[in-house]
């Protein structure tokens, strides 16, 4: 990875500058600028297809970009010299569809990456994995396979699985969108606790109440640009842009 000036916690932990991304001729991101400080929680909201998923997938290099700069802890992501494994050790990601490994139990799902990637010893990994499962209130489901768990339970295992890598930043891509209303609450509670502990979180969400409660900053994207952003109170109560107003009126 490129080593420019060393990163210090007073600088943004994630910084996007003029990010452009297209799939073939389809331009999805058209000049995105975002700065996130350590410990901050930001929510990205916007209509379907506006590029929210693409945006956060660029941060851990699941998507490449055409133009601009993405820096994570001061290190450039958009470069050929990128060490993807090192980047991804710092960033946890939770998907809408959980994506647990179906052939492994909940505990094994959580333990796998620390064992294989961080090469940690089994005893301490197992101890931490159990603690994490307890933290997401699934201590009694350690030996269950994903197929035996409800959506909300699977999603909480997925969160624990990401946390087991002890990341500095967590990405959440509409993690409650596939859940029924009952189980949404459990998952949001888990994320809320995480945010309260000071984890840097980047969330894509349609849960406006949750965003308002937990976010330090809200970004509204439409057709690949950030139309408006601000603190939750100003954003929700005092939106300036017409598109934002329309979107909020439809969703609230």
């Amino acid at each position, binding site marked *: 990875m490129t080593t420019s000036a060393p990163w210090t916690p007073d600088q943004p932990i994630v910084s996007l500058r003029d990010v452009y991304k297209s799939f073939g001729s389809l331009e999805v991101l058209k000049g995105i600028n975002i700065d996130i400080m350590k410990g901050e929680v930001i929510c990205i909201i916007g209509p379907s297809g506006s590029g929210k998923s693409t945006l956060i997938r660029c941060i*851990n*290099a*699941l*998507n*490449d970009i*055409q*133009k601009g700069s993405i820096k994570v802890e001061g290190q450039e992501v*958009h470069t*050929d010299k990128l060490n*993807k*494994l090192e980047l*991804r*050790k710092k*960033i*946890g*990601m939770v*998907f809408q*569809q959980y*994506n*647990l*490994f*179906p*052939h492994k139990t909940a505990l094994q799902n959580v333990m*796998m*990456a620390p064992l*294989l*990637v961080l090469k940690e010893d089994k005893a301490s990994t197992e101890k931490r994995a159990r603690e994490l499962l307890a933290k997401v209130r699934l201590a009694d489901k350690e030996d269950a396979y994903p*197929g035996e768990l409800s959506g909300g339970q699977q999603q909480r295992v997925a969160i624990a*699985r*990401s946390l087991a*890598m002890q990341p500095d930043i967590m990405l959440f891509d509409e993690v409650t969108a596939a859940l029924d209303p009952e189980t949404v609450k459990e998952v949001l509670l888990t994320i809320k606790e995480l945010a309260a502990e000071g984890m840097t979180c980047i969330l894509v969400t349609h849960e406006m109440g949750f965003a308002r409660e937990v976010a330090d900053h809200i970004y509204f994207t439409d057709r690949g640009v950030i139309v408006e952003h601000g603190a939750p109170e100003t954003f929700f109560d005092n939106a300036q842009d017409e598109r934002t107003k329309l979107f909020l009126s439809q969703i609230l």
Partner: protein
Amino acid sequence: MTKPNNFAVLKPTPSSASLQYDPMTVSRFLGTMSPWTLFAIFAVLLIWPTIASAQSGEAVRPFNALWRWMPFLITKGFLFNVLISFLCLVIGTGAGVVLGLGQISQRRFIRAVSWLITQLFRNSPWLVILFIVMLALPYEMTIFGEVYYYPAWIKAVLGLSLPVMANISEIVRGAIRSVPNTQWEASEALAFTRNQTLWRIILPQCFKRMIPPWMNWYAILTMATPLVSILGVDDVVNLTRQAIVAENNRPELLMPFFGFVLILFFAYCYPIARLTLRLERKFAVKL
């Protein structure tokens, strides 16, 4: 500053239209037969020579001859076919797995070559492949100045292994493709390397799915082993022919003798096909 999208986890070489062909046809056909088919074949074989030689009153004699030859045909003939099939399966599976993984390699060149080899041997007549191998390979090999001679049937094994290899390669590729891309993404996001993802996440999930088609190809392979008789290898078909010659080439021997060979193959492949279908149903339920 644009660079190629090297983040895509899997970019398979587009496969030919042959994907639509259901390679499980053989097992489906065999496996859904009633077990009584075996007895039906027996019955036909019994009746045929009876009618054929009713005039001469020699109806029973062909079976006497067959009875005498049976142990020989089974031990020296059919078991040899089974041996050939086993060796082909081992070689074909080993090479096929390597080739199948080659088909999903990240290196374009390896992917293209693996795809080409797979398609070549998958879509050529087995007998032609067999002929080419038999004629192209020498009968002897010189290793460190020492000359080794090896029998023709070894070459036949190699020749039959090639189409098996190609079909196993497709099974491996198809099974890996059947695992949702999101599993690759989740592994990537957890900083797994590609090899870790493949061996720890993807292959364990699709291993079971590969077993029924693999067994299906074993049945096909077993039934193809008589091809080697055309190339002078003394398998069950060649030995049967020789036995009939030894019995003065009487025409009424043809049906009982070759019918017996048919029954041997049926009796061997039928349980395999049944098991294949059972496993297919069983593994189909779970993702």
